């Protein structure tokens, strides 16, 4: 079947070309941003836990690119890319990581725990898996309000062992809610390899036990992720119930910047690096006739500028004032008008 159900042949419109370049930009921006974050951490300019998603850029990009305004996303600790692709201001994101007043959480929380509700990016707690029930609740709202939006919850294969994940998926299945679960299976939960986490090969196999479909895809192949995500998201959005996409991938760096990851085989890392999502995608662009060298220069220049501006903004931003420690605990009750449309 050369024309599989979902593999819609895209007309080569200018818009499509632009979209494809935008995807490239996003992957490069994520990589550049995270590389810079790792460096800033070494320079002690970012304190606390820093969790790099280097190597996993195709997932955030490929899942988020087909999303629409009003969709709700719940990223986890390694999903900095979700913030960028969903439109969070890179400068505010960097300020967040540096604990600045201008950061997403105004210095309250660290790293990716600050959410950006303006873009419906929900800030997670550290308790892995606990944002899945929340995403399910967002999907419930969309259904109740007859909105054509969906909720997307990201989680590592490690988090999949948490009870909250089970409860969330089960209820989503029962209620056929518009929620997409995205498992980034990078083979390790901190130091713990797959075989100590689960007795099966694919987290995606769990989906059927909740009455919906699981899909496995190479998380290092942007086009593959996109092919699945565009199709699956359309189904979820159409009200056909939840879905799970498992993206097989690998994290390049240690669990956090503090971790030398000595428990891993260096070979394994090197092998995965040969499947880096960025060169793979560059090959595709080249095949489509783009002048890759030119594009790369342009985009590198752009990502470098964006990241530098973000760093400048963040560094120049003030730290919060001590008295702000007691702010933001409670919402005021002016009128208590409910907000949902």
């Amino acid at each position, binding site marked *: 079947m050369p024309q599989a159900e979902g593999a819609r042949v895209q007309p080569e419109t200018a818009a499509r070309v632009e979209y494809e370049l935008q995807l490239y930009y996003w992957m490069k921006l994520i990589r550049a941003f995270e590389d810079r974050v790792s460096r800033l951490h070494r320079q002690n300019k970012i304190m606390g836990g820093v969790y790099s998603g280097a190597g996993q850029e195709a997932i955030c990009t490929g899942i988020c690119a087909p999303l629409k305004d009003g969709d709700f996303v719940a990223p986890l600790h390694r999903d900095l890319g979700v913030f960028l692709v969903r439109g969070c201001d890179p400068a505010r994101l960097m300020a967040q990581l540096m604990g600045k007043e201008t950061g997403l959480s105004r210095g309250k929380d660290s790293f990716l725990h600050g959410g950006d*509700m303006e873009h419906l990016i929900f800030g997670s707690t550290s308790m892995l898996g606990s944002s899945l*029930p*929340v995403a399910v609740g967002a999907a419930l709202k969309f259904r*109740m309000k007859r909105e054509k939006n969906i909720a997307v919850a990201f989680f590592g294969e490690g988090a999949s062992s948490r009870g909250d994940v089970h409860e969330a998926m089960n*209820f989503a299945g029962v209620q056929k809610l518009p929620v997409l679960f995205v498992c980034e299976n990078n083979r390790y939960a901190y130091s713990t390899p797959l075989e100590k986490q689960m007795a099966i090969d694919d987290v995606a196999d769990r989906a059927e036990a909740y009455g919906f479909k699981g899909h496995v895809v190479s998380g290092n192949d942007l086009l593959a992720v996109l092919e699945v995500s565009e199709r699956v998201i359309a189904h979820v959005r159409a009200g056909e119930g939840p879905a799970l996409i498992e993206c097989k991938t690998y994290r390049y760096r240690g669990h956090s910047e503090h971790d030398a990851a000595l428990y891993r085989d260096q070979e394994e890392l090197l092998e995965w690096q040969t499947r880096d999502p960025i060169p793979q995608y560059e090959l595709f662009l080249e095949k489509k006739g783009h002048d890759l060298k030119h594009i790369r220069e342009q985009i590198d220049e752009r990502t470098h500028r964006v990241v530098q501006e973000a760093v400048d903004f963040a560094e120049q931003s003030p730290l919060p004032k001590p008295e702000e420690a007691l702010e933001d605990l409670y919402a005021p009750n002016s009128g208590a008008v409910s907000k949902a449309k």
Partner: protein
Amino acid sequence: MEMTYIKAINSALMEEMRRDENVFMMGEDVGELGGAFKATEGLLEAFGEERVIDTPISEALIVGAGIGAAVLGMRPIVEMQFADFISCAFDQIVNMAATTRYRHGGRAECPLVVRAPSGAGIHGALFHSQNPEAWFTRVPGLKVVAPATVYDAKGLLKAAIRDNNPVIYFEHKRLYRSIKEDLPDADFTVPIGAAEIRKEGTDLSLITYGGTLGQSLDAAKIVEKEDGLAVEVLDLRTLLPLDRDAILATARKTGKVLVVHEDRLTGGIGGEVAAIISEHAFEFLDGPVRRLCALDTHVAFSPPLEEAILPNTNKIVDAIRSLAAY
């Protein structure tokens, strides 16, 4: 209209769901059954399956999904079938709901109500008798209320539903059908954060809430009659934030304070109340702040044990007399 405590809860739910289409109800058996205690009776018929949602046995999901809907502007009310099972949703409440606004730098709201039928004295044993409020009163970002009267049951629930923050609403099972009150037909709320003096007095202050208010008032009447003691009874109503002004005012007025609650002594709210008084009303005290609470154990099943463990009117009378004689 005269109604019971449980009916007051039911009518608050009815009225708020009618008033605001973003209010909805979610929990185990809240639909066709109308809840294990009938608190949600009639809601399914009135508002349909989409706004009265029967869930699987998944407390973490119930609260977590409530949070997800709440941050998008809904006003979910979720029910724990028994407050005891709130332990299964603990992380979602204390880490997810309580920090949502803080970790979003003030740019998110989580108007969620968790209803939790709590309390002992109904032969419920270890896992159907708990008073878990003090696990939550130490969590900034939450509000915690515990109505002791029919009026407050309705007014505080309405206030909780309209509040823009997560509120844990402890309803005492023993009060469900044991107390009645004539309530106004017009809409009313009871402000969160305000304690209420239930009986004025000058000799001694008794500070309590929830399931032990009735016993405390009974005890106050007994000592008034038998000993001529004028006991002031303060009903905390809201447990987080505590109404420090009201607490300190009564302590300063009478100089002697007895704190009474059905929760156990150690780690109960009484310790916090006593500490606040001892710190901020020290000069006014004519005697030690005493506490009469459940014994430091689980609530056992067998009647002689349950009786030994829980406070009751007689024990309160004794404690008042002993403190008054100090």
